[in-house]
Protein backbone atom coordinates (compact mmCIF):
# COMPACT_ATOMS: atom_id res chain seq x y z
CA UNK A 1 0.00 0.00 0.00
CA UNK A 2 1.25 3.47 -0.76
CA UNK A 3 1.87 5.75 2.17
CA UNK A 4 -0.33 8.44 0.62
CA UNK A 5 -3.19 5.96 0.51
CA UNK A 6 -2.66 5.06 4.14
CA UNK A 7 -2.60 8.75 5.09
CA UNK A 8 -5.87 9.37 3.29
CA UNK A 9 -7.42 6.41 5.05
CA UNK A 10 -6.25 7.57 8.47
CA UNK A 11 -7.62 11.05 7.79
CA UNK A 12 -10.98 9.53 6.86
CA UNK A 13 -10.99 7.82 10.28
CA UNK A 14 -10.31 11.08 12.16
CA UNK A 15 -13.95 11.36 13.25
CA UNK A 16 -13.57 8.33 15.50
CA UNK A 17 -12.55 9.50 19.00
CA UNK A 18 -10.88 7.33 21.58
CA UNK A 19 -11.59 7.79 25.29
CA UNK A 20 -8.82 9.24 27.46
CA UNK A 21 -6.61 6.66 29.17
CA UNK A 22 -7.72 7.82 32.63
CA UNK A 23 -11.34 7.14 31.83
CA UNK A 24 -10.66 3.62 30.55
CA UNK A 25 -8.39 2.90 33.54
CA UNK A 26 -11.07 4.00 36.01
CA UNK A 27 -13.78 1.95 34.29
CA UNK A 28 -11.55 -1.12 34.26
CA UNK A 29 -10.68 -0.73 37.96
CA UNK A 30 -14.35 -0.23 38.85
CA UNK A 31 -15.23 -3.39 36.93
CA UNK A 32 -12.53 -5.45 38.67
CA UNK A 33 -13.03 -4.09 42.19
CA UNK A 34 -16.13 -6.22 42.97
CA UNK A 35 -14.11 -9.39 42.28
CA UNK A 36 -11.44 -8.39 44.79
CA UNK A 37 -14.09 -7.29 47.30
CA UNK A 38 -15.83 -10.63 46.90
CA UNK A 39 -12.55 -12.46 47.48
CA UNK A 40 -12.04 -10.34 50.59
CA UNK A 41 -15.44 -11.05 52.12
CA UNK A 42 -15.45 -14.78 51.35
CA UNK A 43 -11.94 -15.46 52.64
CA UNK A 44 -11.08 -12.71 55.15
CA UNK A 45 -13.77 -10.25 56.21
CA UNK A 46 -13.47 -7.11 58.32
CA UNK A 47 -11.90 -7.73 61.73
CA UNK A 48 -14.56 -8.07 64.46
CA UNK A 49 -13.19 -5.30 66.72
CA UNK A 50 -13.18 -2.74 63.91
CA UNK A 51 -15.15 -0.17 65.93
CA UNK A 52 -12.52 -0.04 68.69
CA UNK A 53 -9.68 -0.35 66.19
CA UNK A 54 -10.83 2.81 64.46
CA UNK A 55 -9.88 4.77 67.56
CA UNK A 56 -6.31 3.58 67.16
CA UNK A 57 -4.41 6.07 64.96
CA UNK A 58 -2.10 3.30 63.75
CA UNK A 59 -5.08 1.37 62.40
CA UNK A 60 -6.16 4.48 60.50
CA UNK A 61 -2.63 5.10 59.31
CA UNK A 62 -2.69 1.80 57.38
CA UNK A 63 -5.46 3.17 55.17
CA UNK A 64 -3.69 6.47 54.71
CA UNK A 65 -0.61 4.58 53.50
CA UNK A 66 -2.38 2.13 51.19
CA UNK A 67 -4.72 4.74 49.71
CA UNK A 68 -1.82 7.14 49.21
CA UNK A 69 0.01 4.34 47.40
CA UNK A 70 -2.98 3.63 45.15
CA UNK A 71 -3.62 7.31 44.40
CA UNK A 72 -0.02 8.23 43.67
CA UNK A 73 0.47 5.09 41.57
CA UNK A 74 -2.64 5.97 39.53
CA UNK A 75 -1.29 9.48 38.94
CA UNK A 76 2.15 8.18 37.95
CA UNK A 77 0.73 5.45 35.70
CA UNK A 78 -1.43 7.97 33.83
CA UNK A 79 1.61 10.17 33.35
CA UNK A 80 3.64 7.19 32.10
CA UNK A 81 0.92 6.19 29.65
CA UNK A 82 2.10 8.99 27.36
CA UNK A 83 4.83 8.07 24.88
CA UNK A 84 7.13 10.98 25.66
CA UNK A 85 6.88 10.73 29.45
CA UNK A 86 9.52 9.45 31.84
CA UNK A 87 9.56 8.86 35.59
CA UNK A 88 11.76 11.90 36.08
CA UNK A 89 10.04 14.64 38.04
CA UNK A 90 7.01 12.44 38.62
CA UNK A 91 8.36 9.45 40.51
CA UNK A 92 8.53 11.38 43.75
CA UNK A 93 4.76 10.96 44.12
CA UNK A 94 5.52 7.39 45.10
CA UNK A 95 7.46 8.69 48.10
CA UNK A 96 4.23 10.00 49.68
CA UNK A 97 3.08 6.59 51.03
CA UNK A 98 6.67 5.77 52.06
CA UNK A 99 6.89 9.09 53.90
CA UNK A 100 3.62 8.40 55.73
CA UNK A 101 5.01 5.03 56.82
CA UNK A 102 8.26 6.54 58.08
CA UNK A 103 6.29 9.16 60.01
CA UNK A 104 4.17 6.37 61.50
CA UNK A 105 7.19 4.34 62.53
CA UNK A 106 8.83 7.35 64.19
CA UNK A 107 5.56 8.18 65.93
CA UNK A 108 5.25 4.65 67.27
CA UNK A 109 8.88 4.69 68.46
CA UNK A 110 8.16 7.71 70.60
CA UNK A 111 5.25 6.07 72.40
CA UNK A 112 5.51 3.55 75.23
CA UNK A 113 4.80 0.08 73.78
CA UNK A 114 3.60 -3.12 75.40
CA UNK A 115 5.30 -5.38 72.85
CA UNK A 116 8.98 -5.27 71.86
CA UNK A 117 9.91 -4.02 68.43
CA UNK A 118 10.56 -7.40 66.80
CA UNK A 119 7.25 -8.79 68.04
CA UNK A 120 5.41 -5.86 66.48
CA UNK A 121 7.31 -6.24 63.25
CA UNK A 122 6.75 -10.00 62.93
CA UNK A 123 3.10 -9.77 64.07
CA UNK A 124 0.65 -12.66 63.80
CA UNK A 125 -0.61 -12.32 60.25
CA UNK A 126 2.46 -12.09 58.05
CA UNK A 127 1.60 -15.25 56.11
CA UNK A 128 -2.01 -14.23 55.42
CA UNK A 129 -0.78 -10.77 54.50
CA UNK A 130 1.80 -12.09 52.05
CA UNK A 131 -0.74 -14.32 50.35
CA UNK A 132 -3.87 -12.22 50.33
CA UNK A 133 -2.46 -8.90 49.11
CA UNK A 134 -1.09 -10.43 45.88
CA UNK A 135 -4.18 -12.62 45.37
CA UNK A 136 -6.68 -9.79 45.81
CA UNK A 137 -4.45 -7.67 43.58
CA UNK A 138 -4.68 -9.95 40.58
CA UNK A 139 -8.08 -8.83 39.21
CA UNK A 140 -7.12 -5.19 39.82
CA UNK A 141 -3.74 -5.71 38.16
CA UNK A 142 -5.42 -7.15 35.07
CA UNK A 143 -7.71 -4.11 35.02
CA UNK A 144 -4.88 -1.63 35.44
CA UNK A 145 -2.88 -3.27 32.65
CA UNK A 146 -5.95 -3.27 30.43
CA UNK A 147 -6.45 0.43 31.10
CA UNK A 148 -2.81 1.32 30.43
CA UNK A 149 -2.82 -0.70 27.23
CA UNK A 150 -5.08 2.02 25.94
CA UNK A 151 -2.15 4.40 26.39
CA UNK A 152 1.30 4.34 24.83
CA UNK A 153 3.90 3.88 27.58
CA UNK A 154 7.51 4.36 26.52
CA UNK A 155 8.75 1.83 29.09
CA UNK A 156 6.27 -1.06 29.26
CA UNK A 157 7.96 -2.84 32.17
CA UNK A 158 8.06 0.30 34.32
CA UNK A 159 4.44 1.10 33.51
CA UNK A 160 3.53 -2.50 34.35
CA UNK A 161 5.28 -2.25 37.72
CA UNK A 162 3.34 0.94 38.49
CA UNK A 163 0.14 -0.85 37.49
CA UNK A 164 1.16 -3.42 40.10
CA UNK A 165 1.45 -0.66 42.71
CA UNK A 166 -2.05 0.58 41.82
CA UNK A 167 -3.46 -2.92 42.28
CA UNK A 168 -1.49 -3.65 45.45
CA UNK A 169 -2.45 -0.31 47.00
CA UNK A 170 -6.13 -1.05 46.49
CA UNK A 171 -5.88 -4.68 47.59
CA UNK A 172 -3.88 -3.69 50.68
CA UNK A 173 -6.62 -1.20 51.58
CA UNK A 174 -9.08 -4.11 51.73
CA UNK A 175 -6.62 -6.29 53.59
CA UNK A 176 -5.86 -3.57 56.16
CA UNK A 177 -9.44 -3.71 57.44
CA UNK A 178 -9.01 -7.40 58.17
CA UNK A 179 -5.54 -7.47 59.69
CA UNK A 180 -5.13 -7.05 63.44
CA UNK A 181 -1.47 -6.08 63.15
CA UNK A 182 -1.54 -2.30 63.18
CA UNK A 183 2.11 -1.50 63.86
CA UNK A 184 3.67 0.59 61.07
CA UNK A 185 6.66 -1.76 61.39
CA UNK A 186 4.45 -4.67 60.33
CA UNK A 187 3.00 -2.64 57.46
CA UNK A 188 6.44 -1.48 56.31
CA UNK A 189 7.68 -5.07 56.23
CA UNK A 190 4.94 -7.39 55.05
CA UNK A 191 2.73 -5.04 53.05
CA UNK A 192 5.85 -3.88 51.25
CA UNK A 193 6.91 -7.42 50.36
CA UNK A 194 3.41 -8.26 49.12
CA UNK A 195 3.34 -5.05 47.11
CA UNK A 196 6.76 -5.75 45.62
CA UNK A 197 5.56 -9.17 44.47
CA UNK A 198 2.61 -7.58 42.65
CA UNK A 199 4.84 -4.89 41.13
CA UNK A 200 7.21 -7.58 39.85
CA UNK A 201 4.32 -9.52 38.28
CA UNK A 202 3.08 -6.27 36.76
CA UNK A 203 6.50 -5.48 35.30
CA UNK A 204 6.77 -8.95 33.83
CA UNK A 205 3.33 -8.93 32.19
CA UNK A 206 3.59 -5.25 31.34
CA UNK A 207 6.78 -5.73 29.36
CA UNK A 208 4.76 -8.03 27.09
CA UNK A 209 1.29 -6.49 26.91
CA UNK A 210 2.01 -2.76 27.23
CA UNK A 211 4.07 -2.48 24.08
CA UNK A 212 2.22 -0.55 21.44
Amino acid at each position, binding site marked *: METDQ*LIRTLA*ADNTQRAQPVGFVLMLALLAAAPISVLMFFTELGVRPDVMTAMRNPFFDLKFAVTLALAASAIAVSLHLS*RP*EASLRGFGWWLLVPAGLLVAGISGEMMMPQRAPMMTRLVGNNSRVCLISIPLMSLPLLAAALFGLRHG*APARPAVAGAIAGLVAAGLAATLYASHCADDSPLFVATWYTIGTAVVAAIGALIGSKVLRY
Partner: protein
Amino acid sequence: MREREDEWTGLMRSAISGDSAAYHRLLKAITPVLRAAARRGLARAGQPIDQSEDIVQDILLAVHSKRHTWDVNAPFAPWLFAIARNKLIDALRRRGKRVFVNIDDFAETLPGEAHEETASASEIATHLNTLPARQREVLRSIAVDSASIKDTAAKFSMSEGAVRVALHRGLANLTAKLREN
Protein backbone atom coordinates in the same frame (compact mmCIF):
# COMPACT_ATOMS: atom_id res chain seq x y z
CA MET B 1 12.66 23.93 12.61
CA ARG B 2 10.86 25.60 15.48
CA GLU B 3 8.34 27.13 13.08
CA ARG B 4 7.66 23.80 11.44
CA GLU B 5 7.01 22.17 14.80
CA ASP B 6 4.67 24.94 15.89
CA GLU B 7 2.76 24.45 12.66
CA TRP B 8 2.44 20.73 13.43
CA THR B 9 1.11 21.49 16.89
CA GLY B 10 -1.48 23.82 15.41
CA LEU B 11 -2.56 21.27 12.82
CA MET B 12 -2.84 18.54 15.44
CA ARG B 13 -5.00 20.77 17.64
CA SER B 14 -7.34 21.33 14.71
CA ALA B 15 -7.29 17.63 13.91
CA ILE B 16 -8.23 16.67 17.46
CA SER B 17 -11.15 19.10 17.37
CA GLY B 18 -12.47 17.31 14.28
CA ASP B 19 -10.76 18.97 11.29
CA SER B 20 -9.88 16.01 9.06
CA ALA B 21 -8.30 18.19 6.38
CA ALA B 22 -5.83 19.56 8.94
CA TYR B 23 -5.13 16.01 10.06
CA HIS B 24 -4.46 14.97 6.46
CA ARG B 25 -2.07 17.89 6.02
CA LEU B 26 -0.28 17.08 9.26
CA LEU B 27 0.27 13.45 8.30
CA LYS B 28 1.55 14.55 4.88
CA ALA B 29 3.91 17.01 6.53
CA ILE B 30 5.44 14.61 9.04
CA THR B 31 5.88 11.68 6.63
CA PRO B 32 9.08 12.91 4.86
CA VAL B 33 10.65 13.61 8.26
CA LEU B 34 9.76 10.13 9.49
CA ARG B 35 11.01 8.59 6.25
CA ALA B 36 14.37 10.33 6.47
CA ALA B 37 14.81 9.24 10.08
CA ALA B 38 13.80 5.65 9.30
CA ARG B 39 16.33 5.52 6.45
CA ARG B 40 19.06 6.90 8.64
CA GLY B 41 18.25 4.38 11.37
CA LEU B 42 18.31 1.47 8.91
CA ALA B 43 21.50 2.67 7.32
CA ARG B 44 23.21 2.97 10.66
CA ALA B 45 22.13 -0.57 11.54
CA GLY B 46 23.55 -1.82 8.27
CA GLN B 47 20.10 -2.69 6.93
CA PRO B 48 18.80 -2.03 3.42
CA ILE B 49 16.91 1.23 3.44
CA ASP B 50 14.20 -0.07 1.13
CA GLN B 51 12.36 -1.30 4.23
CA SER B 52 11.97 2.21 5.51
CA GLU B 53 8.44 2.61 4.17
CA ASP B 54 7.12 -0.25 6.33
CA ILE B 55 8.51 1.59 9.34
CA VAL B 56 6.99 4.88 8.22
CA GLN B 57 3.56 3.29 7.84
CA ASP B 58 3.91 1.54 11.18
CA ILE B 59 4.67 4.89 12.83
CA LEU B 60 1.72 6.57 11.09
CA LEU B 61 -0.65 3.86 12.31
CA ALA B 62 0.69 4.21 15.86
CA VAL B 63 0.33 8.00 15.71
CA HIS B 64 -3.25 7.50 14.58
CA SER B 65 -4.27 4.88 17.13
CA LYS B 66 -2.56 6.64 20.05
CA ARG B 67 -3.34 10.26 19.25
CA HIS B 68 -5.62 10.48 22.29
CA THR B 69 -2.48 10.26 24.46
CA TRP B 70 -1.24 13.59 23.09
CA ASP B 71 -1.83 16.46 25.48
CA VAL B 72 -3.31 19.35 23.44
CA ASN B 73 -1.41 21.83 25.59
CA ALA B 74 1.96 20.22 24.87
CA PRO B 75 4.06 20.63 21.71
CA PHE B 76 3.38 17.92 19.14
CA ALA B 77 6.93 17.14 17.96
CA PRO B 78 8.31 15.54 21.16
CA TRP B 79 5.26 13.28 21.32
CA LEU B 80 5.62 12.32 17.67
CA PHE B 81 9.36 11.68 17.92
CA ALA B 82 8.87 9.53 21.02
CA ILE B 83 6.43 7.30 19.14
CA ALA B 84 8.63 7.25 16.04
CA ARG B 85 11.71 6.37 18.04
CA ASN B 86 9.87 3.58 19.82
CA LYS B 87 8.64 2.12 16.52
CA LEU B 88 12.03 2.43 14.84
CA ILE B 89 13.79 0.65 17.71
CA ASP B 90 11.11 -2.04 17.55
CA ALA B 91 11.57 -2.49 13.83
CA LEU B 92 15.34 -2.74 14.09
CA ARG B 93 15.08 -5.20 16.96
CA ARG B 94 12.75 -7.36 14.91
CA ARG B 95 15.46 -7.47 12.29
CA GLY B 96 17.84 -8.68 14.98
CA LYS B 97 19.78 -5.49 15.36
CA ARG B 98 20.50 -3.77 18.61
CA VAL B 99 20.95 -0.10 17.95
CA PHE B 100 20.54 3.11 19.74
CA VAL B 101 18.29 5.57 18.06
CA ASN B 102 19.00 9.14 18.79
CA ILE B 103 15.96 11.36 19.17
CA ASP B 104 17.88 14.01 17.22
CA ASP B 105 17.59 11.73 14.19
CA PHE B 106 14.05 13.02 13.91
CA ALA B 107 14.57 16.59 14.87
CA GLU B 108 17.53 17.17 12.59
CA THR B 109 15.98 16.38 9.26
CA LEU B 110 17.44 18.56 6.54
CA PRO B 111 14.93 20.54 4.52
CA GLY B 112 16.15 18.90 1.30
CA GLU B 113 14.99 15.54 2.54
CA ALA B 114 11.46 16.77 2.92
CA HIS B 115 10.64 16.59 -0.78
CA GLU B 116 9.88 13.00 -1.57
CA GLU B 117 7.39 11.18 -3.68
CA THR B 118 5.07 8.80 -1.95
CA ALA B 119 6.44 5.33 -1.50
CA SER B 120 4.94 1.93 -1.18
CA ALA B 121 5.36 -0.81 1.41
CA SER B 122 4.19 -4.38 1.60
CA GLU B 123 3.66 -5.12 5.28
CA ILE B 124 0.31 -3.41 5.72
CA ALA B 125 -0.90 -4.70 2.35
CA THR B 126 -0.14 -8.27 3.49
CA HIS B 127 -2.06 -7.84 6.73
CA LEU B 128 -4.92 -6.20 4.86
CA ASN B 129 -5.60 -9.53 3.17
CA THR B 130 -6.16 -11.25 6.51
CA LEU B 131 -8.89 -8.87 7.68
CA PRO B 132 -12.58 -9.82 7.76
CA ALA B 133 -14.14 -9.31 4.32
CA ARG B 134 -16.24 -6.26 5.19
CA GLN B 135 -13.35 -4.37 6.79
CA ARG B 136 -11.04 -5.31 3.95
CA GLU B 137 -13.46 -4.12 1.27
CA VAL B 138 -14.12 -0.81 3.03
CA LEU B 139 -10.41 -0.19 3.63
CA ARG B 140 -9.55 -1.03 0.01
CA SER B 141 -12.30 1.20 -1.28
CA ILE B 142 -11.09 4.20 0.71
CA ALA B 143 -7.33 3.57 0.51
CA VAL B 144 -6.80 2.08 -2.93
CA ASP B 145 -9.81 3.36 -4.90
CA SER B 146 -9.71 6.77 -3.15
CA ALA B 147 -13.46 6.58 -2.59
CA SER B 148 -15.05 8.82 0.03
CA ILE B 149 -16.97 7.42 2.99
CA LYS B 150 -20.17 8.38 1.20
CA ASP B 151 -19.24 6.67 -2.08
CA THR B 152 -18.10 3.60 -0.21
CA ALA B 153 -21.41 3.46 1.63
CA ALA B 154 -23.30 3.64 -1.67
CA LYS B 155 -21.09 1.03 -3.32
CA PHE B 156 -21.64 -1.59 -0.60
CA SER B 157 -25.19 -0.42 0.27
CA MET B 158 -24.15 0.28 3.83
CA SER B 159 -24.92 3.29 6.00
CA GLU B 160 -22.14 5.86 6.34
CA GLY B 161 -21.99 5.05 10.04
CA ALA B 162 -21.42 1.38 9.27
CA VAL B 163 -18.62 2.31 6.84
CA ARG B 164 -16.99 4.45 9.52
CA VAL B 165 -17.19 1.60 12.02
CA ALA B 166 -15.79 -0.93 9.53
CA LEU B 167 -12.98 1.47 8.63
CA HIS B 168 -12.16 2.12 12.26
CA ARG B 169 -12.19 -1.57 13.20
CA GLY B 170 -10.13 -2.43 10.14
CA LEU B 171 -7.46 0.09 11.09
CA ALA B 172 -7.49 -1.08 14.71
CA ASN B 173 -7.06 -4.66 13.50
CA LEU B 174 -4.18 -3.68 11.25
CA THR B 175 -2.50 -1.91 14.15
CA ALA B 176 -2.93 -4.97 16.35
CA LYS B 177 -1.53 -7.28 13.66
CA LEU B 178 1.53 -5.09 13.23
CA ARG B 179 2.08 -5.12 16.98
CA GLU B 180 1.87 -8.92 17.16
CA ASN B 181 4.58 -9.28 14.56
